[in-house]
């Protein structure tokens, strides 16, 4: 017999996971897409030694940050938001907001990196044509961004996939508090430790379905992109 609180809790956990990762990716996209676009554009510009050097350094840094280990992000956010830390006065540690911030730091580099290469790979000629036809810099940029929209979408989907399946960071900053900061991944850890395998497997199945949904969306986007 499975009681109704079982499903109540699963629902609560799933909604929190979606809310935290969804918010992190939404804010991450608002920050990351413009930055990625600007950085992608740099590649059209001059080829002096200095700009090239800066470009290479920037790209390497972003690529490193794309693979940022979530636990390290968690640790840093923890130290920033602990009551004795610089942002302790906000009282955000062990709240969903702290978890959103953790995942935000994780997803921004992913979105920036993928957007940057998507924008960078759009045909150079498109921008030049637009400019020669009298478009302003901003209009040309918008045109290129539109051309790169599949890549931008991909970056957002990849970021969401990384966020929803992340466990180490939000465990540290959220504290894994039942009915409050317990997500799909952290709940699986606890329920396995407690030996509640029914619960753990149910949560695992939900997480897997979400991951499948993400990949399905990603594949459709890529196929659409290829067909054009």
């Amino acid at each position, binding site marked *: 017999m499975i009681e109704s609180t079982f499903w109540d809790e699963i629902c609560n956990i799933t909604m929190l996971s979606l809310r935290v990762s969804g*918010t992190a990716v*939404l*804010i991450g996209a*608002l*920050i990351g*897409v*413009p930055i990625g676009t600007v950085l992608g554009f740099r590649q059209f510009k001059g080829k002096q030694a200095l700009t090239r050097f800066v470009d290479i350094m920037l790209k390497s840094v972003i690529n490193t940050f794309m693979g940022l280990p979530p636990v390290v992000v968690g640790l840093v956010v923890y130290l920033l938001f*602990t*009551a*004795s830390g610089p942002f*302790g*006065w906000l*009282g*955000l*540690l*062990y*709240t*969903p*907001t702290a978890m*959103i911030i953790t995942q935000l730091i994780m997803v921004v580099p992913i979105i920036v990196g993928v957007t940057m290469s998507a924008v960078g790979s759009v045909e150079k000629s498109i921008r030049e044509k637009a400019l020669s036809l009298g478009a302003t*810099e*901003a*209009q040309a*940029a*918008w045109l290129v961004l539109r051309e790169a929209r599949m890549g931008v979408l991909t970056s957002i989907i990849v970021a969401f996939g990384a966020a929803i399946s992340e466990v180490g960071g939000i465990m540290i900053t959220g*504290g*894994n*508090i*039942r009915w*409050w900061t317990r997500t799909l991944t952290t709940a699986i850890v606890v329920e396995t*430790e*407690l*030996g509640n395998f029914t619960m753990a497997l149910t949560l695992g199945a939900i997480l897997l379905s979400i991951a499948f949904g993400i990949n399905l969306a990603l594949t459709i986007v890529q196929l659409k992109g290829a067909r054009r």
Partner: protein
Amino acid sequence: MKKTSKILVSLLIVAVASVFAYEQYTHSQKSIIVLATTTSTYDSRLLDYLMPMFQEKYNVEVHIISVGTGQAIEIAKRGDADLVLVHSRQLELEFVNSTYGIHRVGVMYNDFIIIGPTNDPAGISGLANATEAFRRIVEAGAEGIAIFISRADKSGTNMLELSIWKRLGTTPSSKTQTWYLEANAGMGTVLRMANEKGAYTITDRATWLSFKNQLTNLKVLVEGDVILLNPYAIILVNPEKHPQRNFKGALKLAKWMISEEGQNLIASFKKEGETLFKPIARDFNKAHELGFPEQEEEIAWYDAQNP
């Protein structure tokens, strides 16, 4: 692009603001306290049993962070919790002496037991002396016929385990001894590991009783030694050190846990017919015996408070 970026920036601000507003809203709805506690009180489901009753009565929401005693105290020291419910006299006294923790009061106790594989290769079954049992495990370990798994997480259980090794004049380590495994994990995980590997370990009785059904390869081998008694204390976070914390809420919870009502509820919490935690808050003789010399004074202080 100018228009677009304006839209993007305003969207961003709205998104961030709404998240914060949501947070503030849910926070303002209820008084919240953060209780940092050990895995044993949580894994045994004691707190899942008690807290809904407290929350109902006082309309205070309790957020439970369940970690080892060492980490729980560390969290409280930083000001990330309002009170702790822990079990390690040494760490508790350090916490109080540092003036970060105040009004340490005994709440309940149970005992530790040494468990191990049913075939008991170290031959410790039935021993009344925990130190002797550990000595035999060391010997069997050196012969390569026994394994011991340590929590190795500065939890109350781990601190007690280390104190027994200390009595033997040894400090085993995974680095030098192959029979000694440092798991850095909670009690539930360590019990499960011991069950898989046929290893010895030390556990609090409450967690053992909660998990017993799933641990078919293990049994209780040593119990009853006086050094295995396991008292739990509540300590409040000093409001002078961390004025932003919810001291009133913490006081309410502490008062309720040591009240007649709370103590009776603790006594009535059973698994498989056995009481998991025995109350001691108002049993002064027992409290003195278990390392709370100022229990009367502290209880009197709590009783006089009216948060």
